[in-house]
């Protein structure tokens, strides 16, 4: 229900804010990493730049082993529509272009460009642009070539979202300063220290989107960031509204943020632009400012290093820096290390190894200890207490989805909108039976997707088979008609061809041939990559 939760004063303006369903209040643990300013991490001796750090197609390497590269030089170009470029984070020599483990839940390796730094950290020539004199598509291409992808975690190519649509679909530019995951403070610190530059980025985005309204949503647990952003907003030559929202996980999720500040729900399967809102992370706005106004591609980002480390804090880190080197910067571990998360404890991924590089999606490295992250108690049966449903921001019935998944009743799970689950983890977090619900949903989703792929392949095969049969039938009929015509023309036909035994035999041979052909066709279809 869309009941205004509160009226919050923001400068002279007031904005009604709304509440989304559910949400939880996990322990924040944010204070410890905001005690110090963002530190600049030193240039590592060796950087590893994956060609796929964004959602979409991997970029294509445009350098060769042995090439000298300068800081900021493009080393892999965007390929295909949904793709962005990758750049050398520092100057040096390309030593290898090969598979290297990357921070990904699958734990798999991906193509990476290795660069041995020369220590000079020499920039390529930087060309600031006057965005006001560029046409929209040139500006978007520039952002693509500058490697800009959403830094909030989704790493979707930003230039695609900076399209107002024809006819104009976007009215509101919404900067997401909501950082709801416990422990993470990179956006908070970025806003505190770079508010003016974020606003300069927002100026470019507003121009590109021709947006009427510019909003910034920040939770009320970041008063310093709110103050800094308000100050920066006051300097803008267009109205910017800083909207203070209640601290509630996952209030920083795009859909939840949009609901909170506009009261609108992004339709299932749709985009935020369907409700006239374009949402970007504040760090992305900063990256856009640097790319357009300074001519610097996205080669670094702010990363929170926290948890079981000597001094938790935020670092401005070059993309490609090995994560173990980054962790070492935060001092000695206070306790025995029991693992590493990339991201927060609610949605982060466990890193199988730490020699993987920092990528554009790396917002936080959370070092675990048994004390900070005790193993969960054994899972008990579901008692249908519906705490999960009460906590679910997607208004799902997690206990029903669990039941359907366990009984492999995937159709019902889909009917109960499994695919609207954003995997925020609220349900698992509150479950008194400690059931790893999200794990079940991931499993169910992958099963359903796999089945759908199979189904598509089978449909495809059947279609091909059916059209073959139809064709053969048609040809047969045509032949038969011709024969009939001939026969009509020459009544004294050879009786032997009408011998029933021969007819049966011929038919059997024909059928066998067709079966073999059909089988082959099916094989071909299955072997065809579906993407």
């Amino acid at each position: 229900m869309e009941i205004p939760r509160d009226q919050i004063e923001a400068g002279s303006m007031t904005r009604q804010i709304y509440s989304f369903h559910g949400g939880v209040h996990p322990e924040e643990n944010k204070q410890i990493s905001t005690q110090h300013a963002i530190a600049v991490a030193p240039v590592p001796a060796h950087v590893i730049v994956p060609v796929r750090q964004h959602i979409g197609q991997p970029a294509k390497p445009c350098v060769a082993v042995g090439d000298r590269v300068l800081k900021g030089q493009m080393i892999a170009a965007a390929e295909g529509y949904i793709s962005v470029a990758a750049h050398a984070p520092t100057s040096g020599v390309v030593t290898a272009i090969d598979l290297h483990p990357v921070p990904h839940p699958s734990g798999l390796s991906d193509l990476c460009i290795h660069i041995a730094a020369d220590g000079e950290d020499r920039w390529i020539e930087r060309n600031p642009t006057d965005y006001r004199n560029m046409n929209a598509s040139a500006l978007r291409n520039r952002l693509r070539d500058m490697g800009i992808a959403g830094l909030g975690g989704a790493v979707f190519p930003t230039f695609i979202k900076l399209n107002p649509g024809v006819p104009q679909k976007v009215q509101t530019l919404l900067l997401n300063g909501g950082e709801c995951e416990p422990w993470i403070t990179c956006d908070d610190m970025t806003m505190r220290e770079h508010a003016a530059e974020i606003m300069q980025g927002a100026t470019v985005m507003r121009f590109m989107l021709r947006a009427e309204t510019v909003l910034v949503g920040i939770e009320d647990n970041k008063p310093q960031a709110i103050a800094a952003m308000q100050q920066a907003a006051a300097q803008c030559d267009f109205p910017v509204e800083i909207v203070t929202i209640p601290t509630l996980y996952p209030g920083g999720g795009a859909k939840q943020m949009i609901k909170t500040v506009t009261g609108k729900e992004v339709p299932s399967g749709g985009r935020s632009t369907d409700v006239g809102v374009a949402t970007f992370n504040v760090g992305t706005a900063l990256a856009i400012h640097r790319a357009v106004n300074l001519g610097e591609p996205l080669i670094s980002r702010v990363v929170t290093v926290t948890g079981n480390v000597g001094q938790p804090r935020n670092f401005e880190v070059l993309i490609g820096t090995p994560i173990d080197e980054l962790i070492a910067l935060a001092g000695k571990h206070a306790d025995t290390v029991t693992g590493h998360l990339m991201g927060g404890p609610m949605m982060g991924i466990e890193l199988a190894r730490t020699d993987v590089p920092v990528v554009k999606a790396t917002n936080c490295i959370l070092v675990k200890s048994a004390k900070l992250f005790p193993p969960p108690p054994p899972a008990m049966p579901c008692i249908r207490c519906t705490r999960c449903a009460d906590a679910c921001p997607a208004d799902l019935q997690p206990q029903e989805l669990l039941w359907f998944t366990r009984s492999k009743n995937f159709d019902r799970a889909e009917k109960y909108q499994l695919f609207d689950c954003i995997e925020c983890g609220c349900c698992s977090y509150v479950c008194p039976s400690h059931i790893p619900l999200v794990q079940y949903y991931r499993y169910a989703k992958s099963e359903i997707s796999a089945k759908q792929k199979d189904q598509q392949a089978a449909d495809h095969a059947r279609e091909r088979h059916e059209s073959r049969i139809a064709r053969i039938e048609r040809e047969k009929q045509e032949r038969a008609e011709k024969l009939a015509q001939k026969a009509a023309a020459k009544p004294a036909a050879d009786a032997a061809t009408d011998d029933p035994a021969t007819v049966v035999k011929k038919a059997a041979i024909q059928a066998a041939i067709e079966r073999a052909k059909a089988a082959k066709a099916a094989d071909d279809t299955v072997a065809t990559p579906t993407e």
Partner: protein
Amino acid sequence: MLSSPYINEKTSVFVIMLKVMLALVPAIAAYVWYFGPAILISLTIASVTALVLETIAVKLRGLPARPFLMDGSALVTAWLLALSIPSIAPWWLIVVGTFFAIIVAKHLYGGLGNNLFNPAMVGYAVLIISFPVQMTHWAAPYSLAGEHLGLADAAQYIFSGLLPDGWKLDAISTATPLDTLRTQLQLHRSVADISQMPIFGSIGGQGSEIVVLMFLLGGIYLWLTRIITWHIPLAFLGALALIAGIFHMVNPQHYATPWFHIASGGAMLGAFFIATDPVSGATTPKGKLIFGAGIGLLTYLIRALGGYPDGVAFAVLLMNITVPLIDAYTQPPVYGHKGIAK
């Protein structure tokens, strides 16, 4: 490897069950105060029986004993059953009831979380059908009783059926107000007349109305601590009051007041502690309202028109059957689906 989330709220089934038991304590205290300590003995018998049966069942099913015994759900079932039957009932009655609750209603259905029916109410239903006589001898309120059963006397009576020399069963036991109402109505007395009898107290029964008040307090505690939501209790009591009010308005001579119905028998205990059992109840907000209201209506119909003095148990069991249907038809809209035609 584990996957997200990596943190849990500090809670467990045991904590929930503990809070439910805590919420029952004021009512139990009032029970002892007004009706004597026999209830403590029946609670103990039920608890011990439940734990023994639970251990056996868990062992037989090859489950790890510790987490499953530590979940506390068997104890809650035992307490609810003991509070639903006469406190001075013979020990074997409690044991039989607990057996049907724990073994038949719970474990034969697949154990915690899988039972279709509310276990305590299954136990109660078996007893009232099989042993109707024993189920009508309730402890009389101290203020009305001829003799007062102490702890030792109560224990002796419960275990051996023997009363101290010279005592009569009538001196310590009585029919409940609901029971009395039923039998007196059959003698063609008017409700107003019957309510003058001392057993009726000021609203729902001498002493028992205070116990009921404590159930209400405990229920509010459960609501405040988010163990339960308001939907089921409110719908249950609201529907019960509504239909009782209608009947009462049409024929006040023959039908008791709505507040009497709310404050007597198992209504309050049922509304806050029994119908709110998550496993066997509806789960969606709308579904909970329907489920609760259904129990309220059925409770009244069984009380007013049926053959049993109280209707809560049968009402709950009947509504348990409808839960899958209710849940399926009351799914709330999912984020992003509002306004989208299905």
